């Protein structure tokens, strides 16, 4: 890894398509209503690996979900910032793979499914904020063994990067070195041990990792 985040936060259901895919279920038990505030989770230090490092696939699952995410690297303390000034607190951007074991329920935090060792590859480079004029119009692509398996764009975010920073810092402070992911698009591609996944975000970079059966290659 070229840099270790201070704390890395992900956000649930921040692509319009991901929320829409749940349909009427958002209004039914156990959820009973769509999310109001940003629903965050943490990818802890044991999940962080660098570009090229192997993602371990547990023996009890066939495949893992590849979560293509824009990582917003915070540059200075952000507490109760407005959407208009939010990007002033950003140092830059990187590509992150928010790996999960497939699961359908978002009622309880899914630490066992999202926080296993190696479940968060982080890009080798941070692209300076000034080199990314609009973080809310970036094409996102996922390739598995070189085959394009997903295309989306950060134009489809429920909360734009600015809005997300504002709404998160209303209730918690982000510090320099923290990374905030802006969400994972719907229909996250699956990949198995033995395959390679690459995530590209236009203007930000490319992150590529092999998947290996847990217990090997580490």
């Amino acid at each position, binding site marked *: 890894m070229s840099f270790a985040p201070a704390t890395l936060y992900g956000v649930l259901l921040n692509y319009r398509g991901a929320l829409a895919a749940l349909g009427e279920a958002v209004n039914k038990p156990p959820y009973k209503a769509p999310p109001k505030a940003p629903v965050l989770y943490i990818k802890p*230090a*044991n999940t962080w690996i660098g570009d090229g490092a192997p993602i371990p696939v547990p023996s009890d699952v066939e495949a893992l979900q590849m979560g293509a995410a824009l990582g917003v690297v915070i540059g200075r303390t952000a507490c109760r910032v407005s959407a208009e000034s939010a990007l002033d607190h950003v140092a830059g951007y990187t590509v992150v793979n928010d790996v999960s074991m497939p699961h359908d329920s978002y009622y309880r935090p899914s*630490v066992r499914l999202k926080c296993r*060792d190696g479940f968060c590859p982080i890009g080798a480079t941070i692209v300076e904020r000034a080199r990314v004029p609009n973080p809310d119009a970036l094409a996102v692509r996922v390739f598995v063994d070189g085959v394009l398996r997903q295309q989306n764009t950060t134009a489809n975010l429920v909360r734009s990067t600015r809005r997300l920073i504002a709404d998160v810092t209303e209730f*918690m402070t982000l*510090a320099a070195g923290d990374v905030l992911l802006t969400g994972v698009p719907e229909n996250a591609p699956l990949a198995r041990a033995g395959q390679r996944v690459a995530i590209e975000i236009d203007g930000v970079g490319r992150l590529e990792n092999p998947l290996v059966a847990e217990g090997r290659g580490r």
Partner: protein
Amino acid sequence: MKRARVAYSGAVHEATDAGGGELRLADGRLVREQMAVWLPPFRPRTIIALGLNYADHAKELAFNAQEEPLVFLKGPNALVGHRGETRRPSDATFMHYECELAVVIGKPARRVSRATAYDYVAGYTVANDYAIRDYLENWYRPNLRVKNRDGCTALGPWLVDRADVPDPMRLALRTTVNGKVTQEGNTRDMISDVPSLIEYLSGFMTLDAGDVILTGTPEGVVNVMPGDEVVTEIEGIGRLVNTVVGDEAFGRSTRQ
């Protein structure tokens, strides 16, 4: 040994309990404990918290027993030391403390069995893990807006060495609000005990030195208001003092 981290006279220090209300700083100075600013007693790496880990508290909140431990993670922004302040937003109607035994990991732990789990523990401290229930949503519940607010998790005063706590599964817990006892329990009533939690967690994530597990709270959580002094206390571990303050102390309008 009981260890603290404090700010004193322009620097951050490690300190030990010198007795008689005094701290001994690592550089030899003796300091009245009221003269120091108490920080969380260790530098945390991953902060792991348990929900509904006491049968009586789960019943109090009307939950059925879960299939596996209810685990969530918190960020360092949430932490505050002994004698710190925690903000109660003016729009909250139910903010409550949670007195919890905090288990601090001392070395890398991967796929550890219950039988050897304590070998990986550095020590213990007291946590007061506040929740503001008004912000609960049924998405990754308890969502971080409830549980990861700035300064809403007090830790301290001391990190007590594992060797000084012969049986962490038999410790009385008690919370007082303005001197009145509101919560009493015992760590023996945990649903998943400390060795089980270390086995469960290390089964899928490698724990490392500085990771901390907040093991949940028993029944007896009540609403607290600005001005309240909340003392969470665990037998043999420590007595952690926190004061609830209003929005105005944080330069916020009292209306939201």
